[in-house]
């Protein structure tokens, strides 16, 4: 007989695993993203009682994000200044490998530009543009006010446009 708690978890939280992996992958690197998602899901399950039942995606992404930043050794806050050597070294290698498979050079350029964003901008860009989350959802996930979400998103976009301009 299945436990109703687990059934509910599988219905409300498990379906967001693509979003969870996407966020973890953009925040960390290929080598650890799967382990971090698994760890985050276990934590989410143990703390499932604290889920208010409203927005499973925002809730589980908050756990994923926290797990990622904890792994990165920075607590729950995104770093203010950007370029993380470790992330870039790890990712630079296989972004090249991955982009080789992609015919469209523009996608490779976009990927590089998003990856080069400071984490606090990168995460909101990923949540808004790739995950199509609302400002409210992003605010809930990141634990910052909506105004901060908007300004980070806006700055992230300016940097992306500049970065893409530079690659033209």
């Amino acid at each position: 007989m299945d436990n109703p708690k687990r059934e509910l978890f599988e219905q409300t939280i498990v379906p967001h695993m693509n979003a969870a992996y996407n966020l973890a992958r953009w925040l960390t690197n290929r080598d650890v993203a799967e382990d971090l998602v698994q760890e985050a899901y276990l934590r989410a399950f143990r703390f499932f009682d604290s889920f208010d039942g409203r927005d499973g995606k925002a809730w589980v992404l908050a756990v994923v994000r926290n797990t990622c930043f904890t792994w990165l050794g920075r607590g729950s806050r995104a770093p203010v200044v950007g370029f993380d050597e470790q992330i870039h070294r790890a990712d630079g290698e296989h972004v090249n490998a991955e982009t080789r498979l992609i015919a469209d050079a523009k996608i490779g350029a976009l990927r590089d530009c998003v990856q080069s964003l400071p984490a606090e901008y990168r995460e909101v860009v990923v949540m808004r543009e790739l995950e199509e989350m609302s400002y409210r959802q992003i605010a809930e996930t990141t634990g910052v006010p909506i105004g901060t979400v908007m300004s980070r998103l806006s700055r992230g976009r300016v940097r992306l446009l500049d970065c893409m301009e530079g690659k033209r």
Partner: protein
Amino acid sequence: MTCTTALGLVEPYLDGELDASQNAEVAGHLSECESCATVWQRLRALSDDLHTPALRYEASESLRNRVLESVRHADGTGRPSRMNWLALAATMLLAVSVGWNVMFLERSRNADGEVAQEIVSSHVRSLIGEHLLDIPSTDQHNVKPWFNGKLDFSPDVRDFAAQGFPLIGGRVDYIDHRPVAALVYKRRQHVVNLFVWPSASAASVPGSVTGFHLLSWNQDGMDYCAVSDLNEDELRQFVNLYR
């Protein structure tokens, strides 16, 4: 609508965050103002480009299965029985009566304790297989001497296998700019890291991180901090045993 207002609203407009009347106003301005329309077009083109599925990483089938598997496993073994609750109540009464100064912080208020953050980071790294054990041993008589020469203090190493918290080993870790002993215990599939170091001050470790429980105390000139994703009550049981 002025250009300043329009440019302030162009991103919420792009992101579908405006109400109908604001939408109409921004659209009206963009149809009349060439310079704002240029900004809008660049942003929209960027947004369109980013929407390509090629930029979105997808979870593999094997990850999905791993997660389902581990959640089922956690579910099967993770729930305390009625007896445990009684034991727990007794433990908590004891805790109150002895008047321990145990700090429990369940969910993130403010992660203002850098030490707590370091401890949790160290714990998480140990979980994902980076560095769990330097000395894998279930024998306290192996683990204790192993620390000699590696640390300038000698942690009290005890095994609680009989009580359901078997010692699985130890390692030297680095917290708050100094080497510390990490004693590693298991509770079912959960790992408990117990960090031990000589007291630098009377203060115990403050702070917390969502998803983890930290219990810290000070005893005989040493600071202790137990961290785990175990539920609070079981972690408290562990601390009770150790103290």
